């Protein structure tokens, strides 16, 4: 039997709220399947499973906030027999807001509707119920629907009455998706830790990207609009290739030791409307074609902005790219996102006087800054990385 636990979706996460199960006991699951939705400070994250088998038992019902490491469900390995009778659940006691990992199976405060009446897809929540729940800080996912499968005012009011009478004010209004206030707290915690614990060094290099832009223009001219490439795609690919050759910048610092990563999963810092920031990982960028990188970014970035990322995207990054892109700033001196050991910042691609082939010319250039963890690497690694990156960007057709 495999225990499927609440994952840690970042250095700053200590608990998460199970929002929804996409699979039910008895369903087959295989590696990479998304089986649950968990709400975190970074939005609602789709949680993947890393084993093949059969979902045996759900241990945490939607609506409960549990610490990282809590068993959410058990999964039978292929060939394994189903679990026998359930132990009697100590269900009478209301589930604590954050149950200890060994707590008995938490139960929702109201009986869930029978499975036959469970509403598939989007829950039927009446407009006023949705509004009242938001005002009262009630998580709609934790509100049991009526016998008709609808969550109305009556159900929300019942949930509000059933809420623990701790006297504590109701939580700030929450909704599925991104709570920017919570996200800012998470960023604050992670960046404070980074600035406090990681001895940073920074190395910069200004790179002529005129060949890249010229090549992109020609390439896009012959492509249909839908499959055109953005500058970010070859940039990410070149970064990944250069990181692959600079293993000291690619990996994690865990328990006072550097653990190099085999693959390059590039975190892409993504600004959110309203002020949030998240850096989901695009997996194995060094092995992807430019089209695949472009497609990956096109899929992931909108999901990051709407708060629907997958767990692996939040946990797997081995280094991060922070690209100021279309802005006008020359350079950025970024802070590493722990436990990673490097972050690469790119200023805007701007026209500058530049010496090319021994003469002064107007060229488009970017200033790339590597922030490295001095416990793991030295400026020399960053310098090697930048030299390699420069070379790769001069031959974009080979990317």
């Amino acid at each position, binding site marked *: 039997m495999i225990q499927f636990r609440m994952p840690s979706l970042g250095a700053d996460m200590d608990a998460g709220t199970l929002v929804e199960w996409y699979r039910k006991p008895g369903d087959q699951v295989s590696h990479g399947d998304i089986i649950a939705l968990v709400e975190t400070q970074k939005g609602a994250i789709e949680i993947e499973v890393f084993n093949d088998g059969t979902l045996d038992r759900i241990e945490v019902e939607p609506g409960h906030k549990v610490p990282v490491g809590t068993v959410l469900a058990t999964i039978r390995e292929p060939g394994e027999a189903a679990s026998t009778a359930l132990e009697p659940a100590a269900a009478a006691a209301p589930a604590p807001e954050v149950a200890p990992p060994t707590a008995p199976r938490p139960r929702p405060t109201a009986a869930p509707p029978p499975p036959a009446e469970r509403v598939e897809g989007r829950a039927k929540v*009446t*407009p*006023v119920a*949705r509004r009242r729940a938001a005002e009262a800080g009630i998580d709609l996912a934790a509100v049991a629907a*009526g016998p*008709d499968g609808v969550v*109305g005012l*009556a159900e929300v009011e019942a949930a509000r009455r059933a809420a623990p009478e701790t006297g504590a004010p109701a939580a700030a209004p929450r909704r599925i998706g991104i709570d920017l206030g919570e996200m800012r707290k998470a960023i604050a915690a992670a960046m404070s830790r980074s600035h406090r614990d990681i001895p940073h060094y920074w190395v910069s290099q200004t790179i002529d990207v005129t060949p890249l832009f010229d090549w992109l223009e020609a390439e896009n001219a012959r492509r249909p609009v839908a499959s055109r490439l953005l500058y970010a795609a070859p940039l990410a690919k070149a970064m990944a290739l250069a990181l692959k050759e600079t293993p000291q910048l690619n990996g994690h610092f865990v328990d006072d030791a550097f653990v190099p990563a085999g693959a390059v999963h590039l975190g892409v810092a993504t600004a959110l409307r309203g002020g949030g920031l998240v850096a989901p990982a695009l997996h194995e960028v060094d092995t992807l074609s430019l089209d695949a990188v472009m497609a990956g970014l096109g899929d992931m970035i909108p999901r990051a902005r709407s708060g629907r990322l997958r767990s692996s995207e939040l946990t797997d990054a081995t280094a991060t790219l922070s690209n100021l892109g279309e802005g006008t700033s020359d350079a950025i001196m970024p802070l590493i996102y722990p436990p990673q050991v490097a972050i690469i910042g790119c200023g805007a691609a701007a026209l500058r006087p530049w010496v090319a082939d021994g003469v002064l010319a107007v060229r488009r250039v970017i200033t790339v800054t590597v922030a490295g963890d001095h416990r793991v690497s030295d400026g020399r690694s960053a310098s090697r990385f930048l030299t390699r990156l420069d070379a790769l960007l001069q031959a974009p057709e080979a990317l």
Partner: protein
Amino acid sequence: MSGTRRITYREAVREALREALTRDDRVFLMGEDVGAYGGAYACSLGLLDEFGDDRIRNTPLAESGFTGAGIGAALGGMRPIVEIMTINFSLLALDQIVNNAATIRHMSGGQFSVPLVIRMATGAGRQLAAQHSHSLEGWFAHVPGLRVVAPATVADARGMLWTALQDPDPVVIMEHATLYNEEGDVPEDEDLAVDLDRAAIRRAGDAATIVTYSANLKKALAATDELAGEGIECEIIDLRSLRPLDDQTIMTSIAKTHRAVIVDEGWRSGSLAAEISARIQEQAFYELDAPVERVCSVEVPIPYPQHLEQAAIPQPHAIAAAVRKTLRR
């Protein structure tokens, strides 16, 4: 505050006519058989003797002609009251009402106005068959340039006419034919005029809002009596004015009850109920705890046999069922 006295809706209409004829020399009544016969619903019975045939004028069976004459008289400075026997027959006068009465102020750049009042009987329930029983109020309520009112109570029947006559633009008063024998209280006051602008809360409650007008107010009240036995207290809004609609009263009530049932004797498709439902979702979407329910007439010409006629139009049990549906019971 003085007391009240109890009269019928018919008597209230007659008193209102008498008051208007007495107070304003420019007022006169014309329509089919309004003289010696006293009108199809006996509203003007006796007025010919009191006011003479200059002011109580019988007309030929020619709705377009006499409605047009009323418009001409209004343009000429009179304050005519035109009675049309039933709303079905008003269709013959629609050209005069829609193309002339409603438009002349606008087409003349405000130089001319049509201070005309048109009264007509509407609705089903008296076994008068399809050509005398329809509920077409929503058609008139569609037309800019008209004010359309529907007195549901005796007091409104008594008080709306004088206010309508003060309006410089055409006003259509819809009198449901099943109301004429209803009794109700009117104040003993001398001035009985009422406003034409605001809907009225006829019963207060917080479980659901029933929006209705005219004779269906009675049915809504009957439905709420039934529901009150189940502990469901509904709020009932009597629209009173069908054009313009008093959105504010409707939305304020829905903000309290979160549920709406619209009762309209018109056919459902393209009905006044459809318009109100649309406004509710435009203006009070985030207050709703259930889809808006409509109780309308079955989409058939109103049948003659009593059991079929009654089956075709809104009834209290259907209203109660719709309320329960909004409560998910």
